[in-house]
C-alpha cells in the first residue's frame, strides 16, 4: 500500500443507542392510536413531549479498527455487544453518533437467514448468498466450493425442508463462510452445533483473520477470543470499560472484575467482619495436598484443599460450617457441609482457633472460574453467615490438566468435567 498512513477501516464515534422501554411489548394498532388521540387529545400531546422511559443500550462508544485487525468484543449479556454489531451492520440505526466504514461489510449475525423451506439447496445457496451481499457471478464461481464444504452434494435439488437441521446449518454456514467482505462482523451464534462443526467454524474464522481481512468478533467463548483476536474491547452497560491489545488480561478482568486482575484464591478477614461468638472466619484459601497455598489458575491434575480458619468463643454443638460452589454463571453447583458424613466423623470444636480442611478432588471440575462461598449456621436454628448474601468467598480458576488422554485436552461443554472410570472387555 502507500506510505501515507491508512485511515482506520472502521471508526466509531460517540455512538449512542437508546431503546424506549415498554415500546416493544405490544404492537400499536392504527385504530387504537387514532381513537386514543381523538379521545384524549391533550394527553396525547403531552405524551408526545414527555420524556420517555429509555434504556441506553450503548452510550458514547468510541473505537477504531485498523485494516486487517481482528477485534474481539466481550461483555456480559446486555452489555451492548449485539446492539453494537447490529448498528455496524445497519440492521438498526444509532440514536446519536456515527460510524464510518471503509470497506465492504459482511455480517454473520445469523446463519441461514432467508432460507426458505420450499426451495432446494441450490436455490437457497443463490438466494442466501444474495442476501449476504454476494453477486451471482461470485456465487457461480464458488458454488462447487460451497457445496463441497457443506457436504450436501446429493441433496442439492431437494427442498431444504427435507434436510436434517444439521444439514441446513452446514449448508447455511458454507454459504456464509464463502462470503469475502473486507470487514466481517461475526456474532457467536456461529458457535452452535456439534463440536466438530464448531471446530470447522473456528478454523474458517482463523483463516479469514489470517488472510488479513478485518474481523469484528463478538463471543462468550473466551478461548476463541484469545485465539483469534489481537485486540479486544470490554463492554459494560453500554460503554467501553477496557480496550487494548493485552487480550488475555482483558479477558481475565472481564471474568473476574477485580482491580488487581488476578483472581483471588484467598480471603482474609480485615478484622471486623462477621463478628460472632460461635465461629468468626479469619481466613479462607486453597492449597495443594501438602498445604502449600495455590493461586489461580489451578491445573486440574491435582487435588485442591480448601482451608478455612476461624475463631470460636462460644462452642456450640450445632455449629455447621460449609461452602457453596458456584459456576461462572453464578448457578449453584453444589453444597458441602462438615456434617455430610456419618456422625463419628464430625469434628468437635472447643474455644480457640479452629482449622477446617476439605478436599475438592482433581479432575472433577471443568475449565472454568468457580466461586466458593463460605457459610456457617447453627443447625436448624440460625444462619451465622448466609450464602448468597454477603459472605467470604474466593475464586477457583481451573485451567489445563483435564486428563492424561491425548484425546481430551480441550475444554468440553458442561459445568463439571469429571474423569470417569471406563472398562472394556470382550465376551469370549
Amino acid at each position: 500500500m502507500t506510505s501515507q498512513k491508512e485511515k482506520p477501516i472502521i471508526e466509531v464515534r460517540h455512538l449512542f443507542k437508546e431503546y424506549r422501554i415498554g415500546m416493544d411489548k405490544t404492537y400499536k394498532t392504527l385504530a387504537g392510536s387514532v381513537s386514543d388521540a381523538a379521545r384524549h387529545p391533550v394527553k396525547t400531546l403531552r405524551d408526545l413531549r414527555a420524556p420517555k422511559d429509555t434504556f441506553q443500550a450503548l452510550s458514547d462508544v468510541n473505537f477504531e479498527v485498523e485494516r486487517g485487525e481482528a477485534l474481539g468484543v466481550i461483555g456480559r449479556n446486555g452489555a451492548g455487544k449485539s446492539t453494537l454489531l447490529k448498528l455496524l451492520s445497519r440492521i438498526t440505526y444509532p440514536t446519536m453518533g456515527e460510524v464510518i466504514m471503509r470497506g465492504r461489510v459482511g455480517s454473520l449475525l445469523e446463519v441461514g437467514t432467508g432460507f426458505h423451506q420450499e426451495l432446494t439447496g441450490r436455490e437457497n445457496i443463490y438466494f442466501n448468498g444474495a442476501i449476504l451481499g454476494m453477486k451471482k457471478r461470485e456465487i457461480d464461481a464458488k458454488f462447487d466450493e460451497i457445496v463441497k464444504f457443506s457436504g450436501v452434494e446429493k441433496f442439492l435439488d431437494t427442498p431444504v425442508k427435507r434436510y436434517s437441521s444439521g444439514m441446513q446449518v452446514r449448508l447455511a454456514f458454507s454459504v456464509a463462510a464463502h462470503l469475502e467482505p473486507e470487514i466481517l462482523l461475526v456474532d457467536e451464534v456461529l458457535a452452535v452445533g456439534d463440536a466438530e462443526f464448531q471446530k470447522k467454524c473456528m478454523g474458517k474464522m482463523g483463516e479469514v483473520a489470517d488472510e488479513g481481512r478485518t474481523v469484528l468478533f463478538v463471543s462468550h467463548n473466551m478461548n476463541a477470543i484469545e485465539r483469534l483476536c489481537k485486540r479486544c474491547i470490554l463492554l459494560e452497560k453500554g460503554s467501553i470499560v477496557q480496550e487494548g491489545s493485552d487480550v488475555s488480561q482483558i479477558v481475565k478482568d472481564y471474568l473476574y472484575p477485580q482491580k488487581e486482575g488476578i483472581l483471588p484464591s484467598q480471603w482474609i478477614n480485615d478484622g471486623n467482619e462477621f463478628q460472632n461468638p460461635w465461629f468468626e472466619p479469619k481466613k479462607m484459601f486453597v492449597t495443594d495436598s501438602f498445604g502449600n497455598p495455590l493461586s489461580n489458575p489451578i491445573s486440574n491434575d491435582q487435588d485442591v484443599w480448601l482451608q478455612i480458619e476461624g475463631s470460636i468463643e462460644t462452642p456450640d454443638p450445632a455449629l455447621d460450617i460449609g461452602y457453596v460452589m458456584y459456576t461462572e454463571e453464578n448457578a449453584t453447583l453444589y453444597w458441602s457441609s462438615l456434617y455430610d458424613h456419618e456422625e463419628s466423623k464430625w469434628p468437635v470444636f472447643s474455644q480457640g482457633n479452629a482449622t477446617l480442611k476439605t478436599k475438592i478432588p482433581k479432575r472433577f471440575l471443568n475449565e472454568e472460574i468457580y466461586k466458593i462461598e463460605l457459610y456457617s449456621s447453627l443447625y436448624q436454628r440460625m444462619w451465622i453467615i448466609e450464602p448468597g448474601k454477603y459472605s467470604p468467598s474466593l475464586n477457583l480458576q481451573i485451567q489445563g490438566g483435564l486428563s492424561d488422554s491425548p484425546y481430551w485436552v480441550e475444554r468440553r461443554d458442561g459445568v463439571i468435567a469429571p474423569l470417569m472410570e471406563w472398562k472394556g472387555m470382550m465376551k469370549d
Partner: protein
Amino acid sequence: MGNSTMTKDTPDFELIIRPKYGLLDLNWRELKEYHELLYFLALRELKIRYKQTAMGASWAVLQPLFTMIIFSLIFGGLAQMPSEGIPYPLFSYSGLLLWIYFQNALTLSGNSLVENHLLLSKVYLPRLFIPTAPGLAGLVDYAVAMIILAAMMVYYQFMPTAAVFLLPVILLLTLLLVAGMGYWLSAVCVKYRDVKFVLPFFIQILMFISPVIYPSSILGENLQWLLSLNPLTSLINAHRAVLLGHAPVDYPGLAMSAAITLLIFISGIVYLRQTEKYFADLV
C-alpha cells in the same frame, strides 16, 4: 482470492452510518451493488408461489379467467353493463388482467416487510427491495394470463393498434404505482399491525372506484375528474385501449396518472427510508 477487486476499485469507499439522513438520500451505489438481490427476491417470490400451490402456474390464469366469467354472468349478462361497444367478457378480462396484477402485487407488497421480519432483524439489505419484489414477480403472472386475452382477441377478432407500443409504459407505471403504494403500506404495517386486516378491504374498494367492471363513461361528464384522481383509472383505460384498439388513448389522463403515480412512488421511497431505521426495533 479472486474477488478482492472491491479494494482496488474503491480505495476511498466510505459508508457512514448516522441517525438521520436527508429526505431523498438514496444510496444509488448500494442499490446498484445489490441489484441482483432484487432479482433473487422476485424469483423467490415466484418459485415459492408456484411450488406451494398444487396448480402452480395455472393459478395465474385461473384467477382472472374465473373472475371474468363470473363478472360476465352478473354484470354483462344480468346487469347489462355497458362496455364501450366491445363484448363484455373481453372488456372485463382486459381490465381484470391489469387489475389482478395490481391487486395481488399490492397485497403481497403491503405485507412483505412484516412477513420478512427475519430479514429485517438479522441481516442488512436495502429494505426498499422487499416491497418492490412482488410487483416484479407479478409481471410473470401477468404475462401468463395474457395468453387468455390473446386467445379471446382472436376469437372476437380484435387487433391491437400501433398504440400497443405504449403497453410497456403502462406496465411500468402500474409497477411504480404498486411499488409506491407498497412502500407506504408495508412500512405502516410494521408499525400498526391492524393495517394488515384493513388492506384487503382497501383494495376491494379500489377496484370499485376503478373502471374494471364498468366503463368510466357511466359516470357523468361532471364526475370524470373524480375518477381521474385515481391513477388506476387512466392506466386501466389506456391498457384496454392500446390492446383492443376500440377507443383512442386518453393521453392527458395518462399524463395525469403518471404524475400521481410518480408522486406516490417517490413519497413512498421517502417514507420507507425515513421509517426503515426502526424496523428492526419494531418487528
